[in-house]
């Protein structure tokens, strides 16, 4: 009975075969993995990281990341691999390039501007 139900749930999960777990050679790599999947978006979901998604494509990407970590790839190489296939928007970090300078620099600039204005005026 349980087996039947499991089978039903299993088949409806659309995730037919998981033949490997997330296996790592050391704790450092495991931590890297769990951090990476928080920083990479699930390409199929409207919103959410790989960590928060169990969509089939998310599972595939996670397994691929495990594989790449095993092959000794660095975090940035892994991110590049996924970006090459799914686009820049799959990274939660928008990157620091001429298109995003404003994004990163504006907050601190405005803070400094406001604070200096305040210290020289002190009337508001």
């Amino acid at each position: 009975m349980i087996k039947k139900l499991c089978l039903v749930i299993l088949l409806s999960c659309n995730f037919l075969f998981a033949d490997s777990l997330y296996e790592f050679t050391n704790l450092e790599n495991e931590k890297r993995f769990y951090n990476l999947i928080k920083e990479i978006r699930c390409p199929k979901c409207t919103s959410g990281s790989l960590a928060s998604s169990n969509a089939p494509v998310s599972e595939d990407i996670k397994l691929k990341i495990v594989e790449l970590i095993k092959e000794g790839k660095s975090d940035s190489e892994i991110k590049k691999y996924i970006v090459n296939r799914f686009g820049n928007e799959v990274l939660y970090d928008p990157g620091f390039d001429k298109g995003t300078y404003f994004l990163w620099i504006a907050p601190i600039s405005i803070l400094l501007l406001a604070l200096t204005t305040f210290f020289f005026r002190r009337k508001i």
Partner: protein
Amino acid sequence: MLVEIAQFLTILSTGLFFLNFSFSFLFDSKDQHIANLVSKIYTHSSLLLVTSFLIYVWLAVSDNFSVLYIAQHSNSNLPIFYKITSIWSAHEGSMFLWILFLVLWGALFNFVTDNLQDLKVKSMGIISIIIVGFLLFLLLTSNPFETILPIAPANGADINPVLQDPALAIHPPFLYMGYIGFVIAFAHAIAFMIEGNSSVKWEALVRTWSIAAWVFLTIGITLGSWWAYYELGWGGYWFWDPVENVALMPWLAATAFIHSISVSSKSSSLRIWTILLSIIVFSLSLFGAFIVRSGIIDSVHSFANDPERGLYLLAFIGILIIGSMTIFSSRLSMLTSGSAIKTFSKESFISINNIFFGVLVFSTMLGILYPLIYESIYEQKISVGAPFYNAIFVPMTVLASIFLFFSVEARWQRKFVIRSLINSMSISALISGSLVFSAYKIFNITGTWELISIFAGSLIIIRYLFVIWDYLLNNKYSNPFSVIAHMGLGMLMISIALNNELSSERALNININQSDMYQGYEIKLSDLKLVNNPNHDSVQAIFTLTDPLGNNFYLKPEKRKYFARGQITTETDIYVTLLKDIYITIGDQLKDGSWIVNIQFNYFIRWIWFSAIMMSFSGIMLIVSINRAKR
């Protein structure tokens, strides 16, 4: 029949609210008769609307599926509680709830406030016209009273099982009470600027109302975070999702606002800030509604994508914001502040606080909008998520908390003075430094910003402990609400840092009657049970965990299949201890019959929510204290 009555009452109340608005602005608000009339009309209009809502509740509870919305979002198999909460599970119904709260806040204010109190008539008028704006939105674009006739379905579609949860059910009401509560401050600020009377202390009138709204908002956001943690199955508590951000912005502005208003309600400083913030807070609340309901930004929370609704809301918000900013702009000269703020007086620290919160609001808004802007320019998509927000929020919060630390020493309307080098500040710094050092050496905490946050958080907590000590020993006066709330902030910073640094997780592979080890705990899959429920079937995995000391406890995560939509959900089970949560979910089953078991150790996560509760608690106590003082 009933639904037509409800709709009729709503239409009628729309007309009456509009009448109310007209009266309050066409006639002399100082006239006793007009004041009483406006108050009465408001009361009647609100009774109509409340009755309409109550009828709607009855329609939901009595399974009236001729009403389209109820057919779409409720089901006769739901418990009564969830039939009621299904009303605000989607756009039209939640809009109705939003309006109900708007009406009720106004009604309460109407009831407890003397009709001839300054600005009452005009502000009630402003609240009325805002209500009209939303009622028209409801009736014209998002009508919850639409019917499916002549043949009503026999039963409704089941609501998303994920929505059948007590925390999630009360999370929107708390949030809405928060967003909408600021209408009182907003209406008063506008009325004040229109009246042009510079002697009225509108801030004092609305202070407790605003603090109450802030408390609701804080609790609402905390509920959302807590719910997401145990329901969504992956153990996160904040995702920087656009809709979370859109709730965070009003909260940030509101926090600045309640600080600012505490100053300007008693003195003549910070008046411009306070008015500006009252407009900004309410505008951000409306902006949030717009973003969520227009479908313009994809998010797990988004209601249906509908440009017509988006345009209406945009126009409505546009008129409101641009209108109030124009009035503000033209009245700026009237709002000249009092004397200059002394260097590093408490007032100046609150101004600095306003600046910090303002920049955080701006940064959050920038983060939300940037993907849209980038795409418009470069025709390419990007995402802006946690890395950006953390990079902005963490350093700025730390910096702001350093200012907070110094502000404890500051005086009202007086310069900053340090008498000797050895004082509570330097001792606090010393103790905090040693705490961080021991965290690093003994507990192996190595993250740079985590250590910095722990330092800043401890600075605040210890400094305030000195304040308490001073009060107990030397009877030196202190503001207890500020003490509790800010210690809450310190705890929040430390808890987030520790949670980030210490938490870990792993995906184990366990077959029945087997066990595995993680973090010194033995995890054994003891049993697999089948559970039948009225609307779902579930496989329950029973785990026996043994801690390093040999104590046993049980965790029972589930996988559920709901009948109505065939949806499969994962239910977590959590073992809560003082310092950490042990969090378990089951993943998929493998070929050999074993299960993937996701286990997480989440440290200090309850402390994060507890800090938020501390802050809310201090707000409630403050309201009680202010009201006592008034009598």
